[in-house]
């Protein structure tokens, strides 16, 4: 019997899930804070911003599931129980496929939300066009993973430009933190484009993602430590 078709981005058998768990926590903190502001001032920007980070958090939850399903397969193989666990193989493959797709859908949706907020795209046609191209990207990326990351590199480039302009205008430490974090996410996505060439690109991308989300957490801690007016 041949190896089951495994779809996952994880190559470090669950160890990278620790990084992803940290990203989930940071994303949830940012999402919650933005939602709290929305509840008071009722400005849609904050609601969409909250959804964007919530989407990123849930995306990484699916990535953890996707990574862990590979770990599960390896355990079975090592125990040489392939025939005994044949049924289990099937549902775990489905789980692996669903979590892999959900990770991609939600991850792209999260950054697309951020993109639409900052470019202030409010026309339905514009939004639908972006959603359409994102879905096409996800469909293609099932077999060509680099297309997914290449699309993110493009979206991220716009975000980085926006955050750089924002930093240039404000010249504050917090706006620099955000600009820096998104620049690092951009580089990490660029690194993920080359996953197929060598697993080290995956490791580099994960480390950079960790650095980016540590910076976003630092930004959150810094603003929380501001003195009350």
């Amino acid at each position, binding site marked *: 019997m041949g190896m089951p078709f495994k779809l996952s981005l994880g190559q470090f058998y669950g160890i990278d899930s620790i990084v992803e768990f940290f990203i989930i926590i940071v994303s949830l903190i940012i999402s919650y*804070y*933005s939602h709290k*502001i929305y*509840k*008071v*001032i*009722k*400005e849609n*920007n*904050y609601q969409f*911003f909250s959804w964007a980070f919530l989407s990123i958090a849930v995306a990484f939850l699916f990535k953890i599931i996707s990574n862990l399903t590979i770990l599960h397969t390896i355990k079975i193989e090592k125990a040489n129980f392939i025939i005994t666990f044949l049924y289990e193989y099937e549902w775990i493959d489905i789980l692996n496929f669903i979590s892999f797709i959900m990770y991609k859908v939600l991850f792209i949706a999260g950054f697309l939300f951020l993109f639409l*907020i*900052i470019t202030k795209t409010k026309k339905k046609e514009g939004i639908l066009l972006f959603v359409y191209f994102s879905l096409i990207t996800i469909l293609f990326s099932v077999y060509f993973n680099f297309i997914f990351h290449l699309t993110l590199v493009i979206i991220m480039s716009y975000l980085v430009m*926006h*955050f750089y*302009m*924002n930093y240039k205008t*404000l010249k*504050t430490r*917090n*706006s620099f*933190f*955000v600009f820096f974090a998104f620049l690092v996410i951009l580089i990490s996505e660029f690194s993920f484009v080359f996953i197929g060439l060598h697993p080290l690109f995956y490791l580099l991308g994960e480390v950079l993602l960790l650095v980016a989300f540590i910076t976003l957490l630092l*930004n*959150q801690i810094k*603003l*929380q430590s*501001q*003195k*009350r*007016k």
Partner: protein
Amino acid sequence: MKKRTKLEVIRDLLSILRENKKVKITHLIYKANLSNNSIKPYLEDLSKNKLIEQIKESDKRLFIITEKGHDFLNEFNKIKIFSESYGLG
């Protein structure tokens, strides 16, 4: 003059209420530099979120700031930094 963001208008309204305790709507309009029409959605949202309260005193409609409103005003600096750091608002 730069147009105020929604966040800044809310800060201004709450600051006026904090400084003046009980305030008539006409006074709020004048102090916050808003029109009669533009102030209404702000007051509705703030009341709905329990940041301000409407009271009646000898047939006059007055507004007061609540404890939650005080908390929001204290948090305003943090909210502004969050909003600015991501270029929101």
